[in-house]
């Protein structure tokens, strides 16, 4: 019965995605409705995940599809921190369609139901999968902030007469938030990778392509943080680097079914 919670979550996230699209054309009521869609959809998905955890007596996200379900929840959770503010509604246009698409993929892969099992120990899953997915969610949000930065910067350069019509966060704010989000997410990714490597060594298994891509993305995000904090990188260059890092994160997420969960 609790599986039915998937549908309100999907419908409300879908409503939010459409609402944010409408808000671009006519800011106001649609944007507010979209924000409520995110909040209520998040509650429905939280209830679904909690029910899964209770029913499966532990950590039920051991398959790629169920981990995708958890990943969507983490991304929306991270978005909710800022998404309720009016100036950040545009960010929802980047986040919510992605959340809807990934939730549908998770459903198609059987990741939103009950009775999932894993060949891994629960402790390993909680630490490795939990940390890596939380980090990926943060990095996805940082990439969305960077995309919004590039869009707003392009507008400021092109100087349209309508530049002040829409409330968008200031360039400096977007830049700072992206940096802070990465600064929080990178330690989680580092720990998640370390736990995974420790288990790999203990089991005597080999590195695979997914692990290699994850490590490369970790290097890119380390470079992002280093260049920003030490070399004074900011603005457009940093935003492009964040998008490159996100491309690797997306690659790892897409490669998971063929790698870790095969």
């Amino acid at each position: 019965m609790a599986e039915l919670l998937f549908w309100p979550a999907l419908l409300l996230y879908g409503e939010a995605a459409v609402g944010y699209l409408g808000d671009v054309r006519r800011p106001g009521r649609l944007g507010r409705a979209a924000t409520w869609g995110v909040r209520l959809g998040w509650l429905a998905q939280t209830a679904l995940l909690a029910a899964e955890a209770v029913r499966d007596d532990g950590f039920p996200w051991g398959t790629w599809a169920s981990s995708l379900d958890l990943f969507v929840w983490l991304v929306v959770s991270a978005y909710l921190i800022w998404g309720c503010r009016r100036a950040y509604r545009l960010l929802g246009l980047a986040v919510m369609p992605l959340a809807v698409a990934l939730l549908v993929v998770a459903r198609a892969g059987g990741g939103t139901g009950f009775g999932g099992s894993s060949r891994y120990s629960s402790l390993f899953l909680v630490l490795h999968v939990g940390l890596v997915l939380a980090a990926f969610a943060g990095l996805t949000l940082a990439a969305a902030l960077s995309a919004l930065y590039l869009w707003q910067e392009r507008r400021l350069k092109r100087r349209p007469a309508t530049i002040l019509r829409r409330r968008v966060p200031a360039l400096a704010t977007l830049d700072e938030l992206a940096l802070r989000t990465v600064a929080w997410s990178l330690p989680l990714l580092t720990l998640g990778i370390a736990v995974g490597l420790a288990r790999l060594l203990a089991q005597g298994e080999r590195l695979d392509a997914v692990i290699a891509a994850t490590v490369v993305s970790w290097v890119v995000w380390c470079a992002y943080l280093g260049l920003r904090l030490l070399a004074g990188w900011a603005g457009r260059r940093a935003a492009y680097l964040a998008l490159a890092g996100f491309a690797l994160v997306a690659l790892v997420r897409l490669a998971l079914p063929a790698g870790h969960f095969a």
Partner: protein
Amino acid sequence: MRRLILVGTSHHRAPVELREQVALGREEARALAARLASGGREAVCLSTCNRTELYLAADEPESAERDAVAALAALEPAVEPALYRLHDRGAAHHLFRVAAGLDSLVPGEGEILGQVRHAYELGSTGRLLDRVFRQALHAGRKVRAETAIGESPASVSGAAAALAEQVFGSLAGRSILLLGAGKVSEQAARSLRSRGAQIALVANSKTSRQEVEAQLASVDVVIASTNAPGLVLEAETVASTLRRRRGRRLLLVDLAVPRDLDPAIGELDGCYLYDIDDLEEIVAETLSGRRREAARAEAIVAAEAQKFHEWQASLEVVPAIASLRARAEEIREAELRKAESLLGRLDESQRRAVEAVTAQIVNKLLHLPIVRMKQAAAATEGVLYAETVRHLFGLGEDER
């Protein structure tokens, strides 16, 4: 019956030469309101650069209006033909439009709401003006919260400050370099300073180039408005400072004609250049946006005016309702007294039950007529209903 009266003039009716003759300072406005409020009246004097309006609540509207006209004519006799006179619903609707910024020169301007509040605080108010001014302030806040009428700047200087906020967010601690000091650039600098920015240097023809270049490496905003015949700042000069700026953004506002700043500066990484044409286009777009929002704001104001009208109209039937309730209660108590010999045999709890039942019967009988009277009060037949009720129930006949 207490009536609301408005007598005043504004930029719609009177040129500035006339308005300045009837403009009042805070103390003058307070004194005039106190003077007009004598004899049990209420009065508020709203005086801004665009309007001087007297709001009065009085039981004899004709003489109150005459006094208000005389008070303004005493300041300047020529103002009389430019005065408008509004009553009750019309006066309230006008005040709500004023508070919402809909009657302002620039629709949705933000200062007027504070000016209305100050006028109210300085006035001599009672039940009617308290209600209408509180509701006006509520309407003004509601319009600003539910529409985008006041969100965008309506002047070149305001647009420059809003652009700076789009780039930097909070302007607290940001520094400004002024190249030349024309009137518009001074206004723009003032607008930025009011948001927390600081002026690092005002450069004129005597300022050395090295000094300007040194400032360029550290400031956040450059505002240029010199009378120089050619470019004052080339793209190469700005480009040479970018390394020292370490990625910090630079907003450049060129208010001069001919332009002071090389248009190629806008192509540099982290530099955002706006000239006077860009700013004027932004302001024109903003104003058209405000006018679009004004239609939504008018609907909010009209709804508030209707609420006020209903409240004021209900005052007309309140005495009749009070008399009706008193009469019914009087009859109930009299009938209970008559039945005292029978009720004497009842114990305390039975007596209380009889009291409650009879009170309930009276309330139920009166409920619908009272609701209908209040509803009718908002329409034109409110007084007729009140008179009919008085006649049918013989209310007030004892006094006659």
